[in-house]
C-alpha cells in the first residue's frame, strides 16, 4: 500500500510522464480510498491550468516588481544596438 507521500510524488510524476501500468493502478486504488489525495490531484491539475494562463506582463501581477526597463537601460540598449548596426 502506498502512503499519501508516495502517492503525491507519483501524481506529480504522472503530470510529466506516462507511468507504468502497475503504478497507475496503485495510484488509482489509493485515490479511490483517499479523498485528500484525490483533492490534491485535482489541485495540481488546477495549478497546471492557471500556470499556463499566467501572463506575467499583464497588469494584474507584480506590484513590487519593476514595470519595465529603466530609462537608463533603454538608452544603453539603444546606443548599443545603434553601435552594432550603424550604416
Amino acid at each position, binding site marked *: 500500500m502506498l*502512503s*499519501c*507521500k*508516495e502517492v*503525491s*510524488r507519483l501524481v*506529480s*510524476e504522472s*503530470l*510529466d*510522464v506516462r507511468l507504468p501500468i502497475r503504478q497507475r493502478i496503485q495510484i488509482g486504488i489509493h485515490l479511490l480510498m483517499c479523498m*485528500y*489525495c484525490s*483533492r*490534491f490531484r485535482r*489541485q*495540481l491539475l*488546477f*495549478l*497546471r*491550468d*492557471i*500556470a*499556463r*494562463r*499566467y501572463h*506575467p*506582463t*499583464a*497588469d*494584474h*501581477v*507584480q*506590484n513590487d*516588481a*519593476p*514595470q*519595465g*526597463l*529603466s530609462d537608463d*537601460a*533603454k538608452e*544603453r*540598449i*539603444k546606443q*548599443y*544596438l*545603434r553601435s*552594432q*548596426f550603424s550604416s
Partner: protein
Amino acid sequence: MADPIAENHPPPDPNTWVELHGDFLFRYAYARLGDRTVCEDVVQDTFLAALRDWPKFAGRSAERSWLVGILKHKIVDHLRREGRRVAETSVSAWSPEELFDAAGRWRCRPARWSTNPQDVLTNKEFWETFWHCLQTLPQRVRTAFCLREMHELTRDDICAALQITPTNLGVMLYRARMGLRRCLEVNWFEA
C-alpha cells in the same frame, strides 16, 4: 536573388523597437529570471539577435510574438549557463519533508478549494498571490516549474537546458508543485 518580402519590409529602427517592445520583453523576462540586470542583458541580446535575423523574418508574422520567441531562447540560454553553478541549498517554506509525517500521511490535509476556478482567473489579487507564491520557491525549482508549465518545454528540453537528469527534474517539479499548492492554500483559499 533578392527576397521580395525583405525588400518590402525595411529593417526597423532600433530606437522604435526598444520603445515599443522593451518594457513588455523586460517584464516577461523578469517574471522568470527575477534579476533586473540580467533581464536588461537578455532583452538587449534579444533585440540584437532580432535585428540580425530581420531579413529572414521581415514581417512574416506578428513582430512582438516573434520577439518573444527569441526572448524565450535567450532566457533558456541564460538558465543553461546559470545551471552550471553550484545548486543552492535553501529550503522552501513548504517542502515535502514538512508536509508529511514520518508515516507518509498528510500533516495538513488538502482542504477543499471551493472557489470556482473561473472566478480566480480574472481576479487581480489572485494573480498577485500566485506570483508571490512563485517567489517563495528556491530559484532553480521555480525555474524548472516555469519552463515546464509556462513555456511548456518537454522534460528532455528542460534537462538539457538546466543540465540535470530527469530524476532531478522530477524532484524539482514535485517540490515546486507541493510548495505552490500549499502556499496558495494558505494565502488564498484558506485566508
